[in-house]
């Protein structure tokens, strides 16, 4: 090996160690270096909270359809999309920001459907729910229906078969309804 190559390799070794140390010492993401904090915090909260995105079919006022984020909202994956929506929920824009985001996601869904990338039903709206299970523990596992299912955001267009109207019995509408 030439001296130049040896210097290059030593520089690579030092850079790799320095990058890792930089991320670790600052405890912050320095992509592509990271302190890898996932699963490192103790989660003592005896409840579980998850966001769930469901669709409102175009031919129904009250029905909802389950959605597959990975298949129907490409390029999003579940974790990435829910983190984004949670950021909107907790951000200054609140419900209006969530509704706007859901409107854009509905466009993504419908674009995928119309181009044949997925075979989901035609939607006219999206709803975002926060699901909560309480009293979660090793002896109390029951992942069936959540204890609380709360509508935290929605976006709805007028149905293609009738003018816009707010149906009775729906949860309190928000945003751009």
């Amino acid at each position, binding site marked *: 090996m030439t001296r130049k*190559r*040896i210097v*290059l*390799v*030593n520089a*690579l*070794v030092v850079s*790799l*160690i320095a*990058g*890792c140390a*930089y*991320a*670790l010492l600052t405890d912050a*993401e*320095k*992509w*592509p*270096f*990271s*302190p*890898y*904090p*996932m*699963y*490192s*915090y*103790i*989660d*003592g909260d005896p409840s*579980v909270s*998850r966001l*769930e995105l469901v669709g409102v079919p175009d031919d129904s006022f009250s029905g909802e359809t*389950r959605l*597959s984020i990975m298949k129907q909202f*490409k*390029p*999003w994956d*579940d*974790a*990435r*999309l829910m*983190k*984004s929506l949670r*950021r909107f929920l907790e951000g200054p824009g609140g419900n209006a*920001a969530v509704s*706007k*985001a859901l409107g*854009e996601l509905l466009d*993504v869904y419908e674009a995928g459907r119309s181009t044949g990338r997925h075979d989901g039903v035609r939607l006219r709206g999206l709803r975002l729910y926060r*699901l909560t*299970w309480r009293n*979660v*523990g*090793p*002896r109390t*596992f029951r*992942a069936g*229906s*959540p204890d609380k299912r709360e509508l935290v955001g929605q976006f709805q267009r007028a149905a293609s078969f009738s003018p816009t109207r707010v149906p009775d019995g729906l949860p309190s509408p928000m945003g751009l309804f």
Partner: protein
Amino acid sequence: MKSFWNRLWFEPASPVNLGVCRALIFTAYLIRYLAVPLNVSEFALMSSEFWKPLPVLGFFVPPLATAFWLRAFETAWFVALALSALGLFTRLSTALAFLLGAYLLWIPHNFGKLHHNDMITVLVTGVLMFSRCGEAWSLDRFFENHRRKKSGRPPETVAPSGEFTWPVRLVWLALATVFFAAGVSKLRHSGLAWITSDNLALMLIKANYMAYIDYPPLLPLGVPLGRLPWACHIIAAATMATELGFPLVLVSRRVRRVLVPVMFFVLIGIMLLFLPSFPELIACFVFFVPWENLKLRSRVAAA
């Protein structure tokens, strides 16, 4: 100290091991990103509200190219990965695989959430870009020997060199930094309570609540395992010890024999019990297999 350092990084080795690792890791990356494409061009069509920039190295945010260019880059990246796996135009293809991959892999992290699975891809392709990984098990070598044969010269024998040792060891170091950092983070944020508390039991249980939204863990063992506190404490202790001790695999063959398979099964366990999978990290374990020895052993067995 100097001789230890030189032995660690520059001990002469034949090019076979590095060549096999190159072929396998680029094949694995190609399959992984073809199976679940990044589709980054579609992120470019999202509104700026979704954009939450993640600075590269903590200080630099590259511009987001248009959807057209991102599609072109992604196609070129797949070609570069395939050529790198085949070992054709290896210097150029590995360089493109790194440069395009680093840019494309960075983009999704600016939308919503940073996933930690693909940073290792950037580091490993970066290492291979600087290496002479196309000297064996490559079409470059095949065509070169074919040319020599046609002109009546004997095939070129590549002598053992430190050039074929340091890239493998540097990938080991990259993996060691990942696992060590994860161990340090657990100690920093939770201390030994990460082992002694009910934390792991609760995490195993909570992972199963995703089943309600169609994302159940692959193996339904999290709940029964979470009900065995002693088992959770042992797994937590073993995980943290393996992560913190992993850098030792660079210097001790004995430690390597224990910690490499243990960490491999920890990653498999996370995938089966928690769902997040780290295929890019798991693929890197090909760098721990002594491919050349396996080849020799199979020859001896055949004889």
